[in-house]
């Protein structure tokens, strides 16, 4: 956040825990899921912020080879038809063309090998699906610190530097 602000960017920090975001897509939202545009009403603030962004930076820990539930719920509830994609005569098309820069910053408890053996689901979802939703050709970084439980201070500092350098490159 400091790096981005120092780079002259306006940053909207959406701290899901601090904001008390509810990740559970409940009955009413499931029933009304395909009702564009009424489907965005329960999460209008989150949708508005996503649509106002030109760059998206996700910062989270990987738990059990996936996003923490609160972030997974942000995808479930906010990445709606008419928001992140459209369904046009049965064809699904991406709709987050406003996002022209994408970065993911994450930490893993498992080491790279163990994670690779499990198929590294969060890397794949970010690298394949999320990238497909945003503007075509948008620069993308996936910054991951593996084997977090055994990472010493030096490795953690080096990772922080790496994240800083990547975000300095935002234009």
């Amino acid at each position, binding site marked *: 956040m400091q790096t981005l602000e120092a780079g002259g960017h306006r940053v909207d920090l959406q701290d899901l825990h601090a904001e008390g975001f509810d990740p559970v897509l409940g009955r009413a939202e*499931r029933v009304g899921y395909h009702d564009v545009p009424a489907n965005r009403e329960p999460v209008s603030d989150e949708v508005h912020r996503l649509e106002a962004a030109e760059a998206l930076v996700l910062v989270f820990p990987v738990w059990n080879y996936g996003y923490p539930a609160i972030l997974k719920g942000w995808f479930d509830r906010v990445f709606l038809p008419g928001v992140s994609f459209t369904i046009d005569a049965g064809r699904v098309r991406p709709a987050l063309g406003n996002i022209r820069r994408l970065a993911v910053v994450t930490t893993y408890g498992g080491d790279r090998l163990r994670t690779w053996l499990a198929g590294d689901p969060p890397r794949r979802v970010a690298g394949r699906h999320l990238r497909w939703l945003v503007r075509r050709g948008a620069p993308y970084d996936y910054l991951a610190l593996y084997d977090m439980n055994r990472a010493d201070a030096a490795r953690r500092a080096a990772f922080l530097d790496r994240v800083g350098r990547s975000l300095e490159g935002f234009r």
Partner: protein
Amino acid sequence: MKVLLVHCHPVPESYCSALAEAARGALDGAGHQVRLLDLHAAGFDPVMKADERRRYNALQAGEHPEPDHARLLRWCEALVFVYPTWWYGQPAMLKGWLDRTWTPGTAFGLQSDRIVPLMTQVRTLVVVTTCGAPWWFSAWVGFPGRRTILRGLRALCAKRCRTLYLAHYRMDASTDASRQRFLRTVERRLARLR
């Protein structure tokens, strides 16, 4: 066999709920002891809060944040998950259940920071799911939801743990006939579990 059936869909009259019902019927019919855990009906809270995260790495067997769920996990010999695949993975509700209940001291141990499986009594893992995406697109993304359970969780179960993955793809283009066919497939395959 003691089977824990974890069902996760917010709409009780949904197709997914029908799948869970069919799974339960088939397992009951085959003589297994089945316990149904309906996460939405139970009002499970999937969000791990700050204090729980602070204590997480050092959790011991008797300190589970959700003791009832810990008992279910320790009890079962097979796990059957029924859920819709959203964004290539488990709904947040189910992901949060994995995060909050598959904890150190219960699902795995941390010995000098190495992961030691503790769910070794689980010899069977089953996923029954519905996907909006077609098979090929799910394959291109790399079946993240399937891998989370069949590889991630399986690593904490018995060494030769069997797995079964049953998915109905392209739900938005599904028909009564395709849904019925899948329902029958689920019943047939689960009735054969030993």
